[in-house]
């Protein structure tokens, strides 16, 4: 097992006040390591997305702390957290959030452009990443012209184009058929994950469990189990 990528200490998050107060995450602590594919699983509403958002600098916890590569991110200023997201973390959102008015390759280049890379250079690098996900020939199409699985791969290309150390996927296979979902995860495991990377996937999809190095179970805002999968598909 590699070094610790993310360390969550007693994270608590609630929404609303008084009568309407719901505690989405109740004292969650865990570690995710480099070189590891970590799954977070659990029923709907158990707090998976909330937890994922807190460890990736998107949602501020009410209590507890998050260390990303040893740095306490919620002590940082909001612009610095934005920079951390930009430079260290790649996101694949559940419904992709591709930009319909941009071409596929421009979509992939977005993190690079936000990093101030020059436009043409960013497109060039973007094209390389599209090649990695096998969609180089779709570079000039609008994302809506692509199939769901292809869009998901574009989203992955965008997430990895910025060279993040940590990749966060929320339900990456939810809207894909079983076969496509498996292929995506297999691709992530074999091509994206490496010793310097940590990949965290939230999923309901038991068909892809066999790729996980660790599986963390959540229920009702609590982490109720953490197991290492010693015979994960490499």
């Amino acid at each position: 097992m590699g070094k610790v990528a993310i360390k969550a200490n007693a994270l608590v998050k609630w929404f609303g006040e008084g009568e309407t107060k719901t505690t989405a995450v109740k004292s969650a602590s865990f570690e995710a390591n480099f070189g590891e594919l970590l799954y977070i699983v659990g029923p709907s509403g158990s707090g998976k997305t909330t937890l994922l958002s807190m460890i990736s600098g998107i949602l501020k916890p009410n209590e507890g702390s998050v260390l990303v590569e040893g740095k306490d991110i919620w002590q940082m200023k909001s612009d610095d957290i934005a920079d951390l997201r930009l430079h260290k973390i790649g996101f694949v959102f559940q419904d992709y959030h591709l930009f319909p008015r941009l071409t596929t390759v421009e979509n992939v280049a977005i993190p690079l452009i936000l990093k101030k890379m020059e436009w043409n250079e960013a497109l060039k690098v973007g094209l390389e990443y599209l090649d990695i996900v096998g969609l180089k020939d779709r570079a000039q199409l609008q994302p809506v012209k692509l199939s769901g699985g292809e869009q998901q791969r574009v989203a992955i290309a965008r997430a990895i184009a910025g060279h993040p150390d940590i990749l966060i996927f929320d339900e990456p296979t939810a809207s894909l058929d079983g076969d496509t979902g498996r292929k995506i995860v297999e691709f992530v495991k074999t091509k994206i994950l490496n010793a310097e990377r940590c990949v965290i996937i939230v999923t309901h999809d038991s068909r892809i469990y066999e790729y996980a190095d660790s599986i963390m179970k959540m229920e009702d805002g609590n982490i109720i189990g953490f197991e290492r999968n010693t015979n994960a598909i490499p």
Partner: protein
Amino acid sequence: MSGILKIALKLLVNDKSKFIALLVGITFAVFLMIMMMSMFSGILSRSSSSVYNVGAKIWVMDPAVNNATSSIPMPDYVLSSARSINGVKYAVPIYFGNALVKLKSGAYQAVSVVGLDDATLYGRPELIEGKIEDIYAESAFIVVKDAEFKKLESPAVGTEFEINDHRGLVVGLAKVASGGLFGIPTVYTTYNRAITYIPSMRFTTSYILIEPKHESDIPFIQQQIKKLGYQALTRDQFVKKISDFYTYQTGMGMNVLMMTAISFIVGLSISGQTFYTFILENLERFGALKAIGAKGHELITMILFQASFTALIGYGLGVGLASGLMILAKLRLPSYAAQVTYYNLTFAFIMVLIMAGVSSYIGVRKVLQIQPFDIFRG
């Protein structure tokens, strides 16, 4: 251009229908504002055309005069008193009136008649044909060759006509700096001929034109004239008095102001509304950018850029459209009064900036409110 702005531009321009709607809104507003204001400036500048054309430094008039062409005649003693004021180099009378001309074809045409002081011909126009001394010849008139010239059946030197049942003879053609507002031709003659040809009341002096010895004498001259119960205005003061009359006393200014305000409001609502919808539709995108790591100020820059880009193009189109239309109108109607001034352009530009500002403000507020977490949750 920085990459972020390029993304902003693509988000905006690639959404063709919204982009066009935005442009239409702004172009329309700019077009209407410029048209209204240009008509108004044109009318104002023409309303003072006689003041400009005569060119005197000081005008003495009855205080009730508010419009160069409707003068109130003054008794002769005002002229002699004016001449005796210290600091007055010379003072001469001028006559403004209207007469009816019977043309060769038998048609009648109203004209405005300017009667120049017989001794000095002060306020004379620049001649393009004929000699100014010929104005002293019998029945002599000089016709101004402006947009209204054709209404006199384009006379030449030597053409005869009847003016208020007297004989008239064209001895020269003149050009003047500025055309009049009322769309009738102008003829010049001597003061004495003018008052003999045109029936008048007991008093005949329309204005007294004064040339001061020095600029610094002007306040004293004005004071002395005031003591006589009359008013002495510098050219600029007189022009302003006339403009104020048209602006505030005729309802024209109010109407133009209202039309301009309405154009502005309509333009603002179309473009503001469309821009708001545009932002709303792209809210998820801005949220995704935020989640990926765009900072607040970068998103603000994008929105400001989108708003000002649209505003500038709309402004350009609006100005172009208005000028084009005015050029066309002038081709067909030579006396068409509209004029585009820097003031109008600047005013419309400021209004457009306000539109862009309001639209961006709404957009920025929305975008800063959006939580990347909400994007994340889908």
